[in-house]
Structure formats: structure tokens, C-alpha cells
């Protein structure tokens, strides 16, 4: 238990640093799609809800879990969908060669 906790803290710390480094380089041009993308990725919380519902430990937990699945899934689907729509709109006037 104790070592699991420490492992988790290490993972959290490293992921924060990766997050800062990666996102620092995102062009301000794309800040809106960035936010809708991280939103969709964040909805990975759905996996917690899926296990909760699937294990069926109590009626109460199942009800909350199903609502949670609905909320998170709508973020996954809606988030990826709108991010893709936004990015399709970004076009350059220069010939596409880099």
C-alpha cells in the first residue's frame, strides 16, 4: 500500500512536468482546440466509472456510476469531435510544404 502510494506520487510528479513541457510549446493559435482535446483526454475518468458499474457492489454505486459514465462519455465523444472540426478549419495561405 505504502509503496503503491509513493509510486503514484512519482508518476503524478513526472506527468506534471511532461505536461508543462509539452503544453508550453503549443501555439496560442491552438489554445481552444488544446482545451477541448485535454477535456476529452481527461474524460478517461470513464474507466473508473465503468469498473464501478460493472462490479455492481451496491445499487447506489451503480446509479452514480451510470450517470458518471454518461457524463464522461459525452465528453469523450463531443470533445474529440469538436476538436477535429476545429482543426480541419485551420488552413494556411502558404503552399503546404514544411
Amino acid at each position, binding site marked *: 500500500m505504502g509503496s503503491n502510494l509513493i509510486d503514484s506520487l512519482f508518476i*503524478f510528479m513526472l506527468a506534471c512536468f511532461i505536461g508543462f513541457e*509539452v*503544453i508550453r510549446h503549443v501555439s496560442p493559435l491552438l489554445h481552444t482546440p488544446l482545451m477541448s482535446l485535454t477535456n476529452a483526454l481527461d474524460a478517461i475518468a470513464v*474507466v473508473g466509472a*465503468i469498473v464501478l*458499474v460493472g462490479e455492481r457492489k451496491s445499487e447506489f454505486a451503480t446509479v*452514480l456510476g451510470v450517470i458518471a459514465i454518461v457524463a464522461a462519455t459525452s465528453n469523450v465523444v463531443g470533445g474529440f469531435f469538436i476538436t477535429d*472540426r476545429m482543426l480541419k478549419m485551420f*488552413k494556411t495561405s502558404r503552399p503546404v510544404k514544411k
Partner: protein
Amino acid sequence: MNEFAGSQYLIEIIYLVASALFILSLKWMSSPATARHGIWAGEIGMVLAIAGTLLHRGIVDWKWIVIGLVLGSGIGIPLGMVQMTAVPQRTALSHAFGALCVTLVGTAEFYLRTPNVPKFMMSVLSMEVILGGLTFTGSLMAAGKLQEILPQRPITYKGQNLVNFLLFSAAVGSAVYLVVHPETKQLFPLIVGISLIFGVLLVIPIGGADMPTVISLLNSYAGLSAAAMGFVLQNKLLIIAGALDGSSGLILSVIMSKAMNRSFRNVLFGAFGQVQASAAGGAEAKPVRSATPEEAAAILSAANKVVIVPGYGMAVAQAQHKVRELYDMLTKKGVEVRFAIHPVAGRMPGHMNVLLAEADIPYDRLIEMEEINGDFPQTDVALIIGANDVTNPAARTDQSSPIFGMPILDVDKAHTVMVIKRGMSPGFAGIDNPLYYLDRTLMLFGDAKQFVGAIVRELGGGH
């Protein structure tokens, strides 16, 4: 660790791959050229993770999982199809949904495990529901304000900060007590309840112009609460995704608060939006020069370099497609047209870029504030459409101005400044803009969409 069955190893490996894909996904977002790969990486990671989770051997009931997934997709599709002008409220709403999921799972986990919750687990669980709860109601409030269901003006009252502080302390205090005395489980609904109320009160005093910062901050909270949920469930993928989202939101909030000249501490404790109200005072009717669409068209077509400065007013008037016609028309006449984008123009980070991209304006024409500010002295015409405070030169010169020190677009250095505006009423912050009284400034009074349309007609009729 011995209880790790074969399928459990497989799930962990799948989560590992999904984590890598998530990081790549964000990395590819750094440039428009690779950004769409980023979406694919994210989608593949997500599908893998969900499929992997279904292998979980504890799962005995499939029916409700499927119902939840189908219902969620049914809600998600229309949410993904909203108009680009509605993106800020959609984003706020999805923060609310994310936080709702985290709060509900946290609540269910608490009642399944209590009273046998180790102290650390209980602390993280409290953090999860506090952050989740306040993000849920706070984001709903923000979405309501952006959708104009709720009043956009800040609602303030005496002692507001004190009330907020006491409420937040009460939530944290109860959480600490519950950690120390796990048997007092009746405290848990209290913690959740206070957090929900706190979220509402936190966003009530915030006005439209501060929305970019608030949305970023709520983004960060949503991420952190998901990471906390990862600790509770011992799920590394969740910890990573939550940390990425949390740091992304934090970076955006810092950028936004710098662009608004607010200290980050100020932002963290939600004291936004209250500073300004008093500043309006006695703005006397000073003389301004105004011009007609014909005159504006003549000046624009005689120019070599034009910089267009869009703001939230352009979004409200839905003028971006007319602006695109203007861009086409002027470009055809050999005028160099660029767009100056202030970081907090609009209601969320990057709002203007998305609107202009929607209108098919190439993104290499959209220039950030720092890059374009040096070019204004060589600019013939700066055309401001629905922006106000971000062009206010008082931010540079007038120490008594509430926005003194806020970085602005130096439009007043252009040879001619044209401002499309409905009337002389001050901007959101209630601050008079000295730009409008300059000799080189022409006020173009009217609705942004109609006025730009009129200029376009004039330009088209000229040949």
C-alpha cells in the same frame, strides 16, 4: 501484487500504451501541421483504454455500462456539433460533465469503502470531491453566463471574499476531521454540499472579460480532481491524464492572467472581476470623429498595410464571415491584411483564432500580440472590430487606470485607427478608452456585421 491475474497485466500494458498515446497527442498539438495526428493518437488511446477496462475481471454486469456509453455518445454528438461561437460555453459545460463524473465516482467509492479508508486515501478522496464539486457547479455557472442564461455582469456583495473563504475552510476543515475520525461518515455529504455551493459563489462575481482565465482555471481543477481519482483507484493512466489536463489548464491560466495583468495569486483565489467597477466616473462627452462606410472603404483601399483587431464584439455580431469578405477584397487589391490577436480577446483562450479559421482566414495571417506590436508604426490602418480594453492606451500611460500595466495591442501607433463600435458606451470593464478621442481615430458607428458588409459593398462597387 500476487492477485494480479493475467488479464490485469494486460490491462496495465494497455494503459501504458494509452498513456504514451495521450502524451504524443498533446505533443502533436504544438503545431497546426501535426495537430490532427494528435487527435488520432488521443482517440486510439481512449478506445484502447476503454476496451482494456472492459477486460477487468471484476465486471459482472454489462447492461448498464453499455446503456451509459450509448447515452453518453448520444449527448456527446450534438455537443460536438455546436457553432464555433458557442465553443466557450460548450467547453465550460464539458468541464462540468468531467467534474460530475469524478465527483459521483468519488462519492460512490466513499460509501463502498467507509469506514475502512486509510488516512491518505481519505485525504485524496476528499480532495477529489471538493475539487470535483466546485468545478461542477462553477463550470455550470460559467456556461450559464456565457450562454447568457445568467446575467453576465459580476454579482458582488459586501464580505463576499470572507464568505467564500469561510465556506472553503469549512469544506477543508470537515475533510480533515473526517480523515482523523473516519467513523464520522455523516460529514461526507456536508463536504460535497459545501463544495457545490462554493463553486456557485466562486463564479458569481466573475464577469465576461475574465472568462478566459476562469475557464482555464476550471480546466485545471477538473484535471487535478481526475488525478486525485486516479490515486483513489490506483489507476496510473488516470493520474497521468489528470496531471496533463491539470498542468495544461494551469499554463493557460497563467498566460491568461498575465495578459489581463492579474497576479496569479489573485487568480487562484478567485478574486477576479471585482477590481474595476468604480472606475467609470464622469466621462465627459469629448469630440470624436466618425466616418461613413464609403470613407472607410476609400481609406482602406488606399492603404498598403492593414491590421484588423478582432474582439468579442465580432463574435457577438457573428461578423467573422463578413470580415473574411473584407479580407478577400483588400487582398485582391494588393493590400497586405493581417490580424492582431490579443491573448484574452474573446471568452476563452484562442477564441478569435477559431472563429477566424472557421471563416477560412489562413492561420498564418493571425499574428500574436508580441509579434505584431512592433509593426503598428508601419501600419497604415488598424481596424478594430468589437475589441475595446485590449486596445486601450491608458494601460500603458495612465497609472490611475484600473487596467494600467495590462499588455495591449499598440493600435494607437498606426497611421489611422478605425473603430467599429455600436456607440460610445464604455467597454465591459467600464473604462473610458482615450483611443477614441485621438486625431487619427475614426469611429465607425454601427453593428459590426452590417458595417463591414457596407464597406465590402463599397469596395466591390468601386471598380
